[in-house]
Every structure is written in structure tokens, then in C-alpha cells.
């Protein structure tokens, strides 16, 4: 469980996060949604400490991450898996070496155990036969999936995914959502996902946090979204004509 208390972040005069509080529970897929530029990435980076919030506190299972020493943070970070919006694969390493990297760094497993684990993870993201390719030689969607494989290879306790299925086709996208939901349940992971994808929101959003202009404008489950009278949220979720019509239908029935 991760508790976020009144997180604020500004860059110079530009206030990006204006006091956000929420709770992300373990075993749940927690989704953060919001328009492009609303601060989802900044928020996620504050959570893992890549950016220092200007105010507020972040508690990892009750431990105050914000006040930890570098060393204490490191021990938390060993339990974190993170997928970056731009994948952030290591260019100088092959797909296989990328996924192998955390295992080589932090385990003393045998080569066979490590390779089995790597191939298992690559299979789960539906990426076989690309082991020896370099990041420069694969597509953006494939890079995303390698990034996901790398972030789950150490069985993290906390999993952060910044737009895991942007750039993926709908089928693969669904597969990734299922994978994230499955491992979240299976290993009781606290999973936090930034997304724009309405399929993901409706399909897996047990908890959804809607960011707007630096504030948390709404939170609830995907089921609540359909009932919500929050205008901003409705405009965001039901943006296309198709979805607007769908929404009307729901209202009429309701």
C-alpha cells in the first residue's frame, strides 16, 4: 500500500502538482488518468523519488519514503519495478540483457535460473524470438513490452507503469492489461498505472484517480465513472462522439 499525502511539485513558477492525496492499495490496479500535460508522469516520478516533491509525504507500507536516507530508499527501490513512458531500455544491451540486468545486479541465481526467468517474462509480454535484438532494432511497442518484462522480472512489490499500452495495438494492449491485472492479483502487488486508454480504465480500473490541472479532481472505481456527474471527468472519458452517444444511452437506461 502506498499513501500519498498532499504532494506538491513545482518547477520554478510552474505549479504542476498542487496538493494531491490518495491511497493506492496492494493487489489492486490503481489507475491515474488525466489529459496530456496534467502531471501524471511528474506525479509518478515524485512517488518513486526521481523528483523531489516540494511538499507532502509518501508512505510505502507505512514507512515515510520522503524522509528516508539514500540507503533506506535504495532498499525500497529494490522492491520497485517501473516502466517509463519512453521505455528507457539500455541501448547498449540486447533485449535479453535488458531483462537480465536486474537479475544480474541483485540476485545470485545460476545462469539457467536467470535465463528461465527472463524467457518466462518475455513470454508473458508476448515477445519471443527477439532476445538478441538491440532496442534500436525493435518497434516502439516491442520496446514497451521489453520495458514491462524488465520491470516485473524481480517480482516487484510496487509496480509503476507510465502508459504501458500507448503505442500498442488493441489486442496486445489488452494482453498487457490482463498481464498487469494478473500479476497484481497473483503477487499482491501495489500497481500504479498512468494511462489515457479508456479500454484500460474500463477494463482494469479498480481504482481510478483523475488528475486535472494539478489537482485530484475525482477518484473512484471504473464502475463509479459511469454514474459520476463530474463534468470534467465525463468530458475526458467520453470524449469521442461514439462514447458520448454511449454515455447518453447509459443515462437514459439509468
Amino acid at each position, binding site marked *: 500500500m502506498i499513501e500519498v499525502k498532499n504532494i506538491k511539485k513545482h518547477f520554478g513558477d510552474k505549479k504542476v502538482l498542487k496538493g494531491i492525496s490518495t491511497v493506492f492499495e496492494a493487489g489492486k490496479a490503481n489507475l491515474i488518468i488525466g489529459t496530456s500535460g496534467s502531471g501524471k508522469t511528474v506525479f509518478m516520478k515524485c512517488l518513486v523519488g*526521481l523528483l523531489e516533491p516540494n511538499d507532502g509525504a509518501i508512505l510505502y507500507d507505512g514507512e515515510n519514503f520522503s524522509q528516508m536516507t539514500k540507503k533506506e530508499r535504495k532498499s525500497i*527501490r529494490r522492491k520497485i519495478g517501473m516502466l517509463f513512458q519512453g521505455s*528507457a531500455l*539500455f541501448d*547498449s544491451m540486447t533485449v535479453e540483457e535488458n531483462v537480465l540486468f536486474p537479475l*544480474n545486479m*541483485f540476485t545470485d541465481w545460476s545462469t539457467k535460473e536467470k535465463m528461465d526467468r527472463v524467457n518466462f517474462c518475455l513470454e508473458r509480454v508476448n515477445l519471443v524470438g527477439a532476445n538478441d535484438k538491440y532496442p534500436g532494432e525493435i518497434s516502439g511497442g516491442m520496446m514497451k513490452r521489453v520495458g514491462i518484462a524488465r520491470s516485473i522480472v524481480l517480482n516487484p512489490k510496487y509496480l509503476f507503469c507510465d502508459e504501458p499500452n500507448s503505442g500498442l495495438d488493441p489486442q496486445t494492449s489488452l494482453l498487457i492489461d490482463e498481464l498487469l491485472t494478473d500479476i497484481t492479483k497473483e503477487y499482491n502487488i501495489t500497481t500504479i498505472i498512468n494511462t489515457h486508454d479508456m479500454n484500460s480504465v474500463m477494463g482494469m480500473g479498480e481504482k481510478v484517480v483523475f488528475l486535472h490541472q494539478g489537482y485530484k479532481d475525482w477518484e473512484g472505481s471504473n464502475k463509479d465513472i459511469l454514474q459520476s456527474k463530474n463534468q470534467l471527468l465525463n468530458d475526458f472519458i467520453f470524449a469521442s462522439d461514439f462514447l458520448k452517444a454511449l454515455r447518453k444511452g447509459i443515462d437514459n437506461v439509468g
Partner: protein
Amino acid sequence: MLKQMISVPESAYMYWKETVRQMNHIGVGSLIIIGIISFFTGAVTAVQFAYQLSGSYFPPYLLGFVIRDSMIIELAPTLSCLVLAGKVGSNMASELGTMRISEQIDALEVMGVNSTAYLVAPKIFAALIIVPPLIIISAFLGVYGGLLAAVNYGIAQEMFEKGLLYMFDPFNVVIMLVKAYVFAFLIATVSCYQGFYVKGGALDIGKASTRAVVFSSILVVLFDYLIAVVMT
């Protein structure tokens, strides 16, 4: 930055692997250019010195002596390191800059890897291991280039070789090695620093690698002078 590097490595093997990769990068990648430049520097020095001596009463074996010492004391370490500042310095800065901009360094940090230790230390270490041998090779090739050019100029090979052994002071080799280590350290640290702290976008990576080359070249000649003053 240096302080952050002194911490227990997560997995010594991974650090060693990265060091070997860097050694390969710096050493093998620079061998040919350093070789060509040293060879011709020796050759040109020989021809021009022979030209300056012609008509004077200096014995021709002096040529070997002059080539040997100027290669060892100055040309091999300084010229090679200026070349390395350009080649290796820009390479290190742009590699780290790219890793910074594309969030690869952030990815390491989130995993709990000490990114300075993992990325910077192997580069400095590799430079310290591989640059001195490169300089030694450079000195040999320079002298060899001088020999071939001298023979071509019409000076007897025995004369040149006699000069090579004339008044050999091993301390000059010490000066050469001191320069090699100091320059290697300067190039690696300056370039890593420039690359590691890049902010902005792809354009800034280019600027950082230019700065890496300019600053490390200036520091190389500056320290060349200081070492010369202190050690001779």
C-alpha cells in the same frame, strides 16, 4: 560525483563487465587513429629535424636521440591524449547524455543501482587501465615512423639506432606514464561529468560533448605544462 562512486558495488561482476566493455571501446576503438597519428608525427619530426640539421655540424645520430625523447616526453602522451579527448571524450559525454535524456539513468536509479558508480567509475577505471599502454604503443610507433622517414631521407639506419640508445634516461618514461595517467583521468572525469548532468533534449547532448572535448583538451595541455614544470 566522486564521493557517490565510493560505495559497495551491487554486483562486482556487472561492474567488471562494464569496465571491460569500456576498455574495449576506448582501447581497440582508438588504436588505429592513435597509431596513424603517432607514426606520422614521428616521421614528420624526423624529416623536419633532419632538414634543420642539414648543413650544420650536428652528428646525424642525434636525430634518433631527439625523436626518441620528444616522442616519449611530449608527443606520444600529449598528442595521443588530445586525440583521445576528441574521440573518447565526446563519446563518453554523448553516451551518458543519451542515457540521461532517454531516462536510462533514471531507470537505473529506480532499480536501486547507484548510477554514478555503475556508469562513471568503469569509464574512469577503463581509461586508467587502457590509456598508458596506448601511449606506450604510440611512442614506439612514433619512433618507428621517425626511423623509416630518416632512412628514407638518407640517414643510415645504424646511425639512427645509435642515437636511439644515446643517453637514455628512464625517468623520461616515468614522465610519459605520469602524463598518461593524469590525462586519462582528466578526459574521463570531465567528459563523464558533462554527459551525466545533461539537461534538455538531443541538441544539448551535442553541446555537452563539444564541451567535453574543449574542456578536456584545454586541461590536457594545461596539465602538460604543469607536469613539465614540476617533473623536469
